Structures are given as structure tokens and as C-alpha cells.
């Protein structure tokens, strides 16, 4: 009995804070917009039967977002930006994590602390701070112009480049930590064994270190790619009006248009876009593990 209670706690949590809200959003996405509070129809009316209530629900909003290029483009643009920034984050994070894992044992807790340290400042404030760095008369341009590297200030703010910089900066710890965890676990004797068998260091990296760090690479990529796809703050603050991302579109739909049903449909589709590949990936991993047995 006690065991069941213990096991049910996480499921209860998921039920209350994920499944029920998800069904509410899903239900809203099947409704129509209305000038009301909340701004959609129908709220369940006891005067009509369940059958009639359900018959009023339809997939019209989904049809709408798939036929409107704005939404489709937002999805693709978000996936593209998230994908590219995930790869770039990986490229920046790998050497850092590698250096941490190879650092003297007594330094490593400090290095991990330093990676986590930015979280002590609000995410929003840190993204705002980048405006001060990237804008025309910002720190970066001042620095480069004083050095004489450039004569005209670079336009970085309100371009996709600024969004990439923002995402890489913000999500770097989520990539570094799982990478570090998997790199740190690698037995140094494995690299000695590889060298002993005739593999020079750079070959050993690709033959031993990298394959053994793959679980960390995958975990890090998921941790960056998924939140980056739905990212709203970074494209809104740094990307300007030209940067299309689904998070921004969703926000505009909810708070600008006040079209909750369409916004809910956008949210449901976003969830599916992210959940389906993850589930496929996990079942694939499960199969591989079975095959290895």
C-alpha cells in the first residue's frame, strides 16, 4: 500500500500538472473564438447533452494553421533555428566539457559551479544584457572599433545571428553538464589502451572518447533543442520583428489576437512536433538495448 503511494506520486504530479492542463488546452483548440471571458465557445453548458457538446468541437483551427503559411513557416523557422543553434552549442560546449573532465580532480567541482553560476541571475536579465552588448553602439561594436578591426558598427541586433548568440549563450550549461558527466566517466586507461594499440591521440578521440560520450551528446542536444524550439524571450528581445519563431507566433496569438482556440491548436501541434521524434528515438534506443542483450 505504502509502495503504491510512493510510486503514484510522480504519476499524480504528471496528471495534475501535465495531462489535465494538456486536455484543457486540447479542448480549447477544438472550440471557436468568441467575444467572452474566456474568449472561446463553448464552455460546457449543462443544458445540452454530452453528444451535442462534442458535436460542436471540430478541427477547424488545425486546418486553419496548416493552411496559413505564417504558422507553417513559424514552425519550420523555429525548428531550423533550434537545430542550427543546437549544433553550434554542441561545438562550443564540447571543448569546454572536455577540458573540465580532463582538469585536475580537485578543480572539477569549482568548474561545475562556474558553469551553473549564470543561473543565479534571472534569465530575462541576462538576455537583456546581450542587447547592451550587441546593439549598434553596444560594447562589442565599441570594442571592435577601438581595436580598429572594423570602421563601421556591425548590425547584429534584430538579426537571426543575435538569436543564435542568445540561444547558445543561454543553453550552454544544459549542453555542458551532460557532456561533462559522460566524458568524466570515461576510464583514462581506455585512452592509454588505444595509444598502446597504435592509435595516435586524435584518432583515439574519434574512436574512443567521442563514441563513449554519445549519451551525453544526445541528452545535451535534447535539452537544448526542445526548449529552443519553443523559445519566445530570446527571439522577441534579440531577433526583432523579422525573426519568425513559433514561440513568438504563439504569444502573439494568445495576447495580441486573443484567439485562444487557434493559439491552443498551435501549442498542441508544437507539442506533437517535439514529442513524436523523442518517443521514436526512445523506442529505438530501447530496441537497441534489447538487441544487445
Amino acid at each position: 500500500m505504502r509502495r503504491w503511494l510512493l510510486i503514484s506520486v510522480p504519476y499524480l504530479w504528471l496528471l495534475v500538472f501535465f495531462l489535465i492542463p494538456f486536455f484543457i488546452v486540447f479542448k480549447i483548440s477544438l472550440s471557436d473564438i468568441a467575444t467572452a471571458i474566456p474568449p472561446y465557445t463553448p464552455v460546457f453548458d449543462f443544458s445540452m447533452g454530452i453528444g451535442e457538446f462534442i458535436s460542436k468541437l471540430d478541427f477547424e483551427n488545425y486546418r486553419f494553421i496548416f493552411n496559413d503559411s505564417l504558422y507553417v513557416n513559424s514552425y519550420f523557422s523555429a525548428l531550423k533555428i533550434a537545430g542550427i543553434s543546437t549544433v553550434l552549442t554542441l561545438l562550443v560546449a564540447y571543448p569546454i566539457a572536455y577540458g573540465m573532465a580532463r582538469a585536475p580532480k580537485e578543480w572539477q567541482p569549482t568548474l561545475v559551479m562556474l558553469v551553473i553560476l549564470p543561473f543565479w541571475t534571472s534569465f530575462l536579465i541576462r538576455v537583456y544584457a546581450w542587447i547592451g552588448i550587441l546593439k549598434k553602439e553596444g560594447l562589442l561594436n565599441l570594442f571592435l572599433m577601438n581595436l580598429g578591426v572594423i570602421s563601421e558598427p556591425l548590425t547584429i541586433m534584430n538579426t537571426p545571428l543575435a538569436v543564435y548568440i542568445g540561444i547558445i549563450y543561454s543553453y550552454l550549461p544544459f549542453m555542458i553538464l551532460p557532456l561533462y558527466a559522460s566524458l568524466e566517466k570515461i576510464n583514462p586507461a581506455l585512452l592509454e589502451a588505444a595509444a598502446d594499440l597504435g592509435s595516435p591521440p586524435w584518432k583515439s578521440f574519434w574512436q574512443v572518447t567521442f563514441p563513449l560520450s554519445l549519451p551525453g551528446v544526445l541528452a545535451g542536444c535534447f535539452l537544448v533543442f526542445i526548449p529552443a524550439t519553443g523559445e519566445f524571450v530570446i527571439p522577441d528581445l534579440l531577433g526583432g520583428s523579422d525573426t519568425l519563431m513559433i514561440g513568438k507566433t504563439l504569444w502573439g496569438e494568445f495576447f495580441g489576437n486573443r484567439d485562444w482556440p487557434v493559439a491552443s491548436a498551435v501549442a498542441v501541434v508544437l507539442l506533437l512536433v517535439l514529442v513524436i521524434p523523442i518517443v521514436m528515438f526512445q523506442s529505438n534506443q530501447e530496441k537497441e538495448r534489447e538487441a544487445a542483450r
Partner: protein
Amino acid sequence: MSEAALSSSPTGASRSPLRTAAPQSGFAPWKDPSKTPMVRFENVVKRFGDFVAVKDCTLDIYEREFFALLGPSGCGKTTLLRMLAGFEKPTSGRILVAGQDITELAPYDRPVNMMFQSYALFPHMTVEQNIGFGLKQDGMPKDQIAQRVEETMAMLELSKFGKRKPHQLSGGQQQRVALARAIAKKPRIVLLDEPLGALDKRLRQTAQFELMGIQERTGTTFIIVTHDQEEAMTVSSRIAVMDHGEFVQIATPGDIYEAPNSRYTANFIGDVNLFEGKVVNVAGGFAEIDWGPGLARFKAVAPEGCAGQQQVWLALRPEKIHIDLDKPTDASNALPGKVVDVGYLGSISHYHVELANGQRVKALRTNSSRTVDRPISWEDKVWLQWPAETGIVLAK
């Protein structure tokens, strides 16, 4: 030839475990000054900061030898091996392989392969891939790699496990894969760092004979690092006993046991009784040793350079002491004592005998007949005796 045929048995069980010191009779290349050693350490010193791990070591190891570096942990034996593999650089001195200086070569350019204490098998590769790893680095064609891997796996009875990953193998199987990987490239020298340390005792004994079989079949020079004196005695052609970064003695297992050059070696290998004394007289090749007032002097073969008044230790192996109830009539050395402890092990019995001065002596007796009229027991007054030739006079 017959050696190789016999050793093809994977467990080596068909071979007599009672092997003489050298693998083949007359195998003693270290006595041949014209031979070029396979490995030569030349005045090798290794310091880690203030700590001196290896102090000025000079050592020659010959082709086809099974050479053991034996000593307690921290004696420098592993450092010596790692310097040969290339993982550590000597602070000074040179290391030569087949006459060629390899001191500056990177590990991946050396003609040696190592079997690691932790095995260090690549966890993401199958057994086949692990064994073939070294061959792949050499750019060997795929079909040849497959063939060599096949042969090596057959030699070590691993053929069934080729497609498995290391974590799906037992400890003994992992150990064999590690050995297979180290010999797959047919290196000139195979280094073994405590190769059997992780196995339980019974498996270890089987594995020791397997190692010897593989070494003889492949004709490779094996260098093993171990702290297990029994293991070193069993497998090796010669042993270097190490202490605090120095060689104490380098000799065949038989010589190390029967003719130790110091108290350290005598103590480290096997059981020994030590008596401290002073040489009072040397005559006719025998030394008389005074080891306390009122005690009968010992008579033992005088070592070279033994002189009067020199402080020495007499080392006596327990199995070489004869224990009896009656006083012997014509023994060169006889000591009265009292039995304080008896350990009956079936084939042999251990006796702890207390002498008049309080010192305890260990003696061994084989129980060669089933019934004895009067077995030696606790509190018995006994006589210990041994011929002058069996005691070893040690100066240090």
C-alpha cells in the same frame, strides 16, 4: 615442439604444474653474453616531484623470456612497465628494445602491447572489435583482420563471444579478451600489469597456466608485474624482486628461493626463519656463527667474502628443518625447543617451536606415513636439526 602441443590445452591442466625454473631446459639467454637483450633498461630513473619511483635501474630482458617484476605496491614495478609502454618518460636513462633506443617514442609507435590491470576493454565495441582494434590502427586489410581475430579468439576459447560486448562477459572472459587484444598484433613484447589481480584464486591458477601456454606458443617476450610471489614463481623464467624503486635480486625462481641474497628477498618469497648472529670463525668453507651467549653455534656454508666478526643473518626454510623427539647424534646443527603450535594440513604439518631464548622457529614435516606411533604434539620437547649446507648466511 612437444611443449607447444601440450600447451594447446586451454587450461594448461594437462601440463605438469611442477615446472622447473626455466621454461625449456637449458633456456638461460641471460648467461649468454653474445645475445642482444630484447629489452634493456639503462640507468633508468623516474621521479614524480620529490618522490623517486625508480632509482637507477639497469636490467636486461631476453627474447622469449617470461620476466616477472615482483614487489609490494609502490615499489616502482608498475612505473617501470609504464615507462616501457611509453606512458611515462624516464627522468633520466635510456630504454632499448632489440638494441634500438625507444626512450623518445610515443606509445603508439612502440612494438609493445600491454594488458591492463583494469583490462581497459572498449565498452562500446564487441569482443571482435576490441581484439581487432590494434590491427585496424596498422591499416591491415579487413579480411586479414577478421582472420587474425578469428585465430586469436580460437587460441583463447573466445570464438563464441565474438559478437558480445565486454559488459556481457564474466571476469575470466574479460581477462582473456584483454590478453587476446594484447597479443593480436603479434608484438615483440607483451606487458602484463597485474593481469590476474581481479580473478578469484582458483581461476587465477588456471589463468596462470594459460598465460604460460600462450607465451610459449607465441614465442613472445612477456613481462609481468605482480605483487603475488606465488604467481611470479609459477609463470616466470626470471624474477626481479623490487623494493623502494630498486632491484634487490634478479634471478630464476629456484635461485630466488634457494639462494636469496638478502633478508628482504628471503622474507618476500616463501616462509623463512631468520637468526641474527656474528661470524666467529671461517674454516674449510664453513662459517661458525655465534647467535647468543650460551647457545650452540651454527655451522653453515660461508658465502664469498665472509669474514670474522661480521654481522650476519642465517636464513632457514621451514621445510629444511628436521623435527624429532630424540636428540640427534651427528647433526651439524641441533637445537632443543618446545612445541607451542601445531597446524595439521593433511599432507604436511606446521610446527612452531620455541627455543630456549624465546625465539620461535617454524618447521615443516610431510606426513608420509598414515599412522605414527607417537605424533609430535603441543608441549613436546623436540630437537630441530639441519645440515650445514641448508642454512643461508645473509650479510644484509
